[in-house]
């Protein structure tokens, strides 16, 4: 049984169909990279997976527990709030814009949700948060406020905040896109380290070299469809589909 599965999802904004019958499933310990041009639907897919958007139709499952399933008309029906609350604890999301809480210091950004949402023991959570801060190379910054940190540091706090919830799977929505090029390295390093620890991750990214390096599987999306999917050495190094080739070629030029 896969840890996460999103099945036959379709989603439109008005007349614009952004997701067309997409199915993705992720096993425990797997690292999946989603690539594709802007507007291809990859971010929307991630937002559907994390329930920031509701699917028009399709099913969403974590650990075999249904967050949403299709009714007789093929429309997505979401589980009751109590079930969703439990399912939400299975995953975390790291945003492109970090979205740290500016009025909380680093430590509180990490600890508040575990203590007040998961109702875990404060001392235990604080201890765990401190070790995550250390792991992210942010020792001594625990009482800094987000705006006192660089973009790279803020994103590391955001990753630590997601990890502090002890998720089974972590989603990344273009985690380095808002950063200056010289700061992307520190984030990629952190993600790479998590991959080595067999953290289950789905990463939407424009960093092709990184995707090839760290992912077990790459999904190429375009126009709301999954165009190509497979091992990174196949999809990125030897794409079979014309659209993938075009995208990667353009990327090589720009990059």
């Amino acid at each position, binding site marked *: 049984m896969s840890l996460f599965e999103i099945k036959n999802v379709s989603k439109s904004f008005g007349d614009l169909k952004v997701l067309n019958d997409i199915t993705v499933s992720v096993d425990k310990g797997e690292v999946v990279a989603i690539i594709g041009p802007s507007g291809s639907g990859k971010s929307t897919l991630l937002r559907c997976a*994390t*329930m*920031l958007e509701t699917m028009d139709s399709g099913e969403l499952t974590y650990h075999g527990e249904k967050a949403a399933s299709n009714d007789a008309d093929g429309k997505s029906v979401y589980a009751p709030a109590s079930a969703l*609350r439990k399912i*939400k*604890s299975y*995953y*975390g*999301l790291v*945003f492109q*814009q970090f*979205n*740290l*809480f*500016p*009025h909380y210091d680093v430590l509180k950004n990490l600890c*508040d*949700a575990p203590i*007040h*949402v*998961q109702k875990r023991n404060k001392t235990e959570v604080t201890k765990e948060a401190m070790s995550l801060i250390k792991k992210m190379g942010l020792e001594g910054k625990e009482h800094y*406020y*987000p*705006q006192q940190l660089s973009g790279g540091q803020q994103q590391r706090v955001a990753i630590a*905040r997601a990890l502090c*919830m002890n998720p089974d799977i972590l989603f990344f929505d273009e985690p380095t896109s808002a950063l200056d090029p010289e700061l992307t390295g520190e984030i990629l390093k952190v993600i790479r380290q998590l991959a080595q620890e067999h953290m289950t991750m789905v990463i939407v990214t424009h960093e092709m070299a990184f995707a090839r390096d760290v992912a077990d599987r790459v999904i190429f999306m375009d126009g709301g469809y999954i165009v190509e999917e497979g091992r990174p050495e196949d999809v990125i190094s030897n794409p079979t589909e014309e659209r993938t080739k075009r995208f990667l070629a353009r990327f090589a030029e720009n990059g």
Partner: protein
Amino acid sequence: MSLISVIQQIASGFGATLLIFFCTLLFSMPLGVLVALGRMSKFKPLSLLIQGIISVLRGTPLMLQLIVVFYGPYYAFGIKLSTNWRLYATLIGFSINYAAYFAEIFRAGIQSIPVGQTEAATVLGYTKVQTFLKIIFPQMIKRTIPPVTNEVITLVKDTSLSFVLAYQEMFTYAKQVSAAMSSLMPLFVAGVFYYIFNLVVTIVMDRIEKALSYYN
């Protein structure tokens, strides 16, 4: 009649002015938050209703609203008005009027907070209430302090409007002393009182703003 006794007489109305001022803030601010939330409700009829009420409260004179609140119960329902109603009607009139203004300020404050804050909170599992109270509300307060300060300063001066209900606050006393003395001097003394009061208000609001400036 000496300046000192003029000051004493005017000061005797200062308590009533303070009462209107603090009670109005105490009631109108929480009410303003609720009204702002209702105004932003996805339930259209509620949102439209509140929009209409705000429009009337902001679009008609506060003086008229005070008269409506005070005499309304008698003219609409034939209820005899008690003496205390003079104060209560003043407080109700001021509170709902200021709630309308605060609601729009708070709404602007809430809407200026990036949607990412709510999304981050949602993904972390905060309930809607938690998200509002812990994440949105504190940031909203910080962002709205300058316009709120404007309103609070206006309120200090608006308390004098309660003269229409003959509620005996500072300016009413000032006018009475003025009439008794056949001189405008007491009105200027009252002006000094208002100015000093607002100076204190400005300092307090400034302190609050500074206290909240530990983050951006």
